[in-house]
């Protein structure tokens, strides 16, 4: 019985439990549902919950633990002699699993029978061809021990699968019976379902939190690994970034961090004033009609894929800045530059700033405006002195969110700013950022365990810390803002 089938059976039991529970509840109330504490559906729901939830939990745990257990049992059968030169136990175990799976497939396809497998003990020569016929390729000649291990693997798996079916379906039936017996008119089925819903909500939010924690840990482990191979001091304080494939690289984060901050800074210089002024226009000056098409039009900018912005930077903005500014001013002749990436990134950020600021400005109560107009203030005085200060915390939050977006951007930067790690003030020079280097270090051909590759994780973690800090700051400010009109 396969795991999918077992789960299906459990769900069917739960479904049936729902209807049985429902009618039982009505029956215990003597047919008058006003005698029940909760509506009949809730009684049905509790039966369904008790039959499904514990059984499914057992099933999930079982599926997680079963491979570990079998692995432990089977690997004892492999003698050190069975492990080929330069190989490892885990490789042999992979073979065992493949052969076991292959035998299953072969039996299903009818090329082998259980009896023949039993007999195969002595003669393994045609196993390989048999498996080949059903599309399972086994690398080398199969050794006796490995084959025996695979057989045990199959047997154990089949036994455990059967045990799982019995236990899980048993748990489901037991749960159904337990909750059916509990049904009486005073049973608070509604409150029980309420708890179940709460549990579901908690589960969902913990998935999000656990994912974040998981991401941090996976980065953290690789980063620690990196720092064992490369001194942390050099990573954080060296101003040279020069990875070498044959080792002996300089992997200082400073030029990359500088590039990241410089590009983001240029982007914000560009995006914040424009976005903010656009937001003020949209929320305070624009007529309903203008607003109804201008706001979506600006927000379209946010929907353009960043690679398209990258193309725009590469073929339009870059050459433009080079031909009209950099070369006449004698500041360089590269079309990839901090300014190119910054400007294009800034364009991408405009809708972030304007849309969030617009919401914040709109959230300033009309009474504030009335109060100011009532004192004889003009529109721009009102905006400058009442609305913007009132909305400021929210606007700062919007800017910080835009900043963390800028810091994390990759595509536009790689196409606009180039890939040369440099510490320079000239905005017309090509520079590069942390994100770009993460990609290029991971996609190189160097060995995974070398510092040249692992540095990507340290860079990633540094980036994560920077943007996390910004986000926390933004959240803090936004929250403070919320309290303002309470």
């Amino acid at each position: 019985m396969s795991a999918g089938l077992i789960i299906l059976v459990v769900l069917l039991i739960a479904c049936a439990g729902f209807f049985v529970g429902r009618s039982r509840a009505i029956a215990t109330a003597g047919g008058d549902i006003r005698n029940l504490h909760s509506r009949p559906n809730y009684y049905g729901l509790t039966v369904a919950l008790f039959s499904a939830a514990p059984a499914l939990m057992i099933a999930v745990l079982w599926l997680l633990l079963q491979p570990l257990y079998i692995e432990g049992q089977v690997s004892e059968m492999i003698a050190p002699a069975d492990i080929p030169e330069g190989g490892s136990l885990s490789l042999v175990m992979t073979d065992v699993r493949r052969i076991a799976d292959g035998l299953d497939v072969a039996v299903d396809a009818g090329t082998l029978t259980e009896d023949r497998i039993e007999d195969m003990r002595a003669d393994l020569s045609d196993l390989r061809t048999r498996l080949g016929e059903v599309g399972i390729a086994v690398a080398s000649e199969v050794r006796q021990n490995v084959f025996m291990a695979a057989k045990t693997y199959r047997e154990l798996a089949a036994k455990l699968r059967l045990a799982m079916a019995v236990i899980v379906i048993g748990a489901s039936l037991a749960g159904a019976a337990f909750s059916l017996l509990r049904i009486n008119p005073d049973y608070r089925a509604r409150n029980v379902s309420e708890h179940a819903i709460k549990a579901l909500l908690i589960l969902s939010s913990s998935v999000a939190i656990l994912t974040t924690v998981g991401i941090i840990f996976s980065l953290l482990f690789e980063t620690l690994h990196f720092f064992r191979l490369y001194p942390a001091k050099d990573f954080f304080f060296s101003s040279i970034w020069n990875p070498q494939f044959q080792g002996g690289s300089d992997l200082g984060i400073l030029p990359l961090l500088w590039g990241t901050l410089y590009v983001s800074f240029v982007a914000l210089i560009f995006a914040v004033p424009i976005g903010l002024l656009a937001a003020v226009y949209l929320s305070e000056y624009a007529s309903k009609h203008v607003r109804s098409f201008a706001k979506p039009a600006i927000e379209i900018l946010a929907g353009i894929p960043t690679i398209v912005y990258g193309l725009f930077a590469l073929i339009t903005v870059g050459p433009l800045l080079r031909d009209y500014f950099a070369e006449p001013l004698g500041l360089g002749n590269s079309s990839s530059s901090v300014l190119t990436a910054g400007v294009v990134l800034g364009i991408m950020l405009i809708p972030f700033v304007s849309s969030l600021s617009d919401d914040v400005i709109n959230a300033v109560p009309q009474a504030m405006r009335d109060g100011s107009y009532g004192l004889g203030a003009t529109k721009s005085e009102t905006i400058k002195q009442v609305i913007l200060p009132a909305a400021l915390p929210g606007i700062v939050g919007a800017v910080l969110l835009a900043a963390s977006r800028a810091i994390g951007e990759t595509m536009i930067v790689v196409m606009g700013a180039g890939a040369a790690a440099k510490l320079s003030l000239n905005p017309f020079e090509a520079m590069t950022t942390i994100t770009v280097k993460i990609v290029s270090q991971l996609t190189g051909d160097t060995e995974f365990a070398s510092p040249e590759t692992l540095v990507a994780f340290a860079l990633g973690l540094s980036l994560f810390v920077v943007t996390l800090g910004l986000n926390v700051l933004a959240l803090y400010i936004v929250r403070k803002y919320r309290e303002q009109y309470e």
Partner: protein
Amino acid sequence: MYDTLIPENAVDQKEIKINAEDVQVYYGDTHAIKDVSVKIEDKTVTAFIGPSGCGKSTFLRCLNRMNDTIDICRVEGKILLDGEDIYDKKVDPVQLRAKVGMVFQKPNPFPKSIYDNIAYGPRIHGLAKNKADLDVIVEKSLRRGAIWDEVKDRLDQPGTGLSGGQQQRLCIARAVATEPEVLLMDEPCSALDPIATAQVEELIDELRQDYSVVIVTHSMQQAARVSQKTAFFHLGNLVEFGETSQIFTNPVDPRTESYITGRIG
């Protein structure tokens, strides 16, 4: 029954400050004010009374063009301030509102310090030559708003942190600080305790020496105490307008009488 409440108000003839003629106000298709004509005198307190939703606030907001900020609101008719039509194209609503100040039905202090709340108007109109001047204006206004004693030690704290009644008095002080010629007050005492109410009424009486004051109120006693003229609105119509003493003792219209004796509203 109101005889005891009516003060010995001076009933001499005064200059007309605001003259509204045949004013109509529409919110979209709703006709909120119908054919209202009133003459509001200078150095007089005029009370607007009437049941909830009858258009008192709406009409009050016409007098300093605050209705301009509501998209769907349309005003017709003539409103003259010192003989000049305030809805004329030449008139700048901003300047008009500096002359005709307003205290709103709901307190709306700015999320700034108490000091800056009061100093806001004087600053934008350049009423103070220097910081010391401004300090004087702030203190004087807060005193007139009957809130100085409560806030004198916390002028740098946000105005939004005050209680509802304190906020309302702050808003009164803020409106007074710009020295308007006409002060429109929309239920200024609805959130105040009796003591603060008495102080605000005292302020209104004091303002009457120099300004024209229009006050919307739901309290008959208050209207009787502070006003010299009373206008009774009902369903968007101005039902009756006249001397306060006459309205409260001898109303002409049966609807006025029912309202002030508590039978409609």
